[in-house]
């Protein structure tokens, strides 16, 4: 019991640090570029992070079970290409939306099936499917870009509630609330964390871990399909570079949010705040007209730093030492 209390207090401080970081970044960018303090700019942060955000929320489930999905970006790209192809050939919007969501779901299911039914580690599975999805989307699209989607579709994903609140943020918050309630209050969240700590014991306590695994990878696939629609609503061009670096952004958000890469410890709320931090960073860099490469460079550094920072905290050491037998990470005992 005391252990649980302990953990909650640590998590709260971690989220406190993240919130401080968020406001610190906003103030810093605001001082450099005063335009950053305008509400419209801050709200735009939520709009540009919607698609990466929903994928990061789904990814938190998977990383909590000590898995990972590297293929998210190219799943999104392939779904977007499928949407473009179906829409431009049939001119049927509902069919195209269904096709994109179905495509994302099927790809996620494919990942989940391999991870759950074979002994291939998730990292390797999704590394391979990442290249596979990328290749397929390039084969389908060639050098073509798909554009010219109807105004109604764009409005559906760029609408501003009451003229200010971006609808992407509403979608993101809705997904967050659903996933967080399942994660923080239900048996599912406990099972996911348990699978991250020790899969065998969860299996022996009667939980169908294979079904859960297939389920969470399929869920992430569905969210990738949805993210593709959100992306197309915002930028309305389906091309074969959408997926580049997306998996970095998603994984960085999840790890920065306080989910352990070794599994067992996680926080959907942390991911939520981390997404906002990355969004502020992205918007700030855009306003300061810095290139996407500097953004990626910063994110890579943040990813490594957050790995290191969490490694040196006491909590993570406990997590890691309890998992030595399971993982392949060398350590002195």
């Amino acid at each position, binding site marked *: 019991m005391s252990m649980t209390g302990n953990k909650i207090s640590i998590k709260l401080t971690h989220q406190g640090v993240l919130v401080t970081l968020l406001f610190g970044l906003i103030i810093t960018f605001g001082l450099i570029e005063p335009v950053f303090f305008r509400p419209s700019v801050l709200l735009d942060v939520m709009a540009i992070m919607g698609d990466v955000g929903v994928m990061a929320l789904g990814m938190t489930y998977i990383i909590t079970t000590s898995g990972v999905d590297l293929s998210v970006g190219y799943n999104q790209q392939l779904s977007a290409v499928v949407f473009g192809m179906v829409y431009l050939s049939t001119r049927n919007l509902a069919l195209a939306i269904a096709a994109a969501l179905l495509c994302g779901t099927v790809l996620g299911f494919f990942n989940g099936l391999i991870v759950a039914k074979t002994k291939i580690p998730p990292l390797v599975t999704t590394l391979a499917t990442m290249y596979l999805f990328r290749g397929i989307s390039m084969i389908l699209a060639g050098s073509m870009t798909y554009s010219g989607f109807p105004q109604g579709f764009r409005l559906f994903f760029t609408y501003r509630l009451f003229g200010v609140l971006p609808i992407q943020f509403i979608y993101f918050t809705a997904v967050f609330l659903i996933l967080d309630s399942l994660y923080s209050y239900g048996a599912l969240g406990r099972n996911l964390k348990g699978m991250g700590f020790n899969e065998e014991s969860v299996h022996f306590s009667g939980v169908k871990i294979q079904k859960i695994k297939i389920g969470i990878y399929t869920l992430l696939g569905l969210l990738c399909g949805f993210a593709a629609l959100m992306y197309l609503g915002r930028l309305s061009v389906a091309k074969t570079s959408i997926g580049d670096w997306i998996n970095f952004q998603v994984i960085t958000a999840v790890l920065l949010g306080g989910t352990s890469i070794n599994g067992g410890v996680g926080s959907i709320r942390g991911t939520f705040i981390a997404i906002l931090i990355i969004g502020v960073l992205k918007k700030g860099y855009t306003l300061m007209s810095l290139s996407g490469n500097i953004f990626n460079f910063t994110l890579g550094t943040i990813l490594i730093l957050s*790995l290191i920072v969490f490694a040196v905290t006491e909590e993570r050491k406990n997590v890691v030492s309890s998992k030595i037998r399971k993982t*392949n990470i*060398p350590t002195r005992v």
Partner: protein
Amino acid sequence: MKKSIRMTREVVLAIIVAVFILFLSLTTNFNTVSGIYSFMLDISPTIVAAIALSLVIFTGNIDISAGTIMGFVAYTAGKLAEAGIPFVIFLPAGMLVGVALAGLNGYITVKFKVPSIVVTLAMNMVHIGFYATFLPMSGWIENLGENFTWFGRGRFLNIIPYGFVLAFFVSLLFMFIMKYTKFGKALYAVGGSIQSAMYSGIDPDRTVIKAFLMEGLLLGIAAVMKATTRSDVMPSLFIGRELFFISAALVGGVSIFGGVGKIFGTVMGALLVYLLSISMIYLGFQDYYQFALQGIIILAAVYITVTDFSLLKKSYCKETDEFPGKKGEEA
């Protein structure tokens, strides 16, 4: 009985490669001098880099940033050669850069106990961001002279590139190292089971770092080998190439879980992956079919490894460590 050749995975691969080369030489320009020369030229850096990756995979780790590390090496070598510094200095300098960057990967992996794939994925991004942002002209160096390209373009007897000879000796050296030295045994031991390795007096941390350092050294050689065939060099030259090196190692029978595999298998794997990719070009497929093909190759190779019981038996501790429940269902 004792003398008969066992049909191990490596032997099967060697036969497949031989048949492949036979067919290619019957149908394409593979049997001409220029065909053989360009084949050897292309395959040499891939072999050396695949051996480099194998060393890391033997210990149960992986390095996704191999391609971008090679980019830094190529940039360093090109920059030094531009200033008129000879090959005998810029090759070790490049190797040093490789050792430093790969060593950093290994250090973070071991010191902070985080999966190497995530560390190197992040490093990949840091590297690319670094040279696109901080290097002038994204690190593009052009018009390199004879003092840079003599190694890459030079050939013995007008047919065998210097690089191929080097790759040949590197392969032989590492076959020897993995079979007969303490270092080689330690790599397998750590990859097989960290705890057993520890109980037999091997320091797993130091072994993994050594594997990464050695990887960096070989990546340095491979990058210089490839870069010196060109008169213009940029760090982005090798982005995404790690995919080929990893699939070469995995096709060659190196287990992704560590502890299993042979250098000869990796060499055969590198040849097979290369032959497959050029066959696709001969068959008229676009370049981007390669991504899909490599993805399928990795999945298939790993799937065969995890379901191959003779291999599983070799990685003794792995099988008992994972899902006993699931094993019961299958039996």
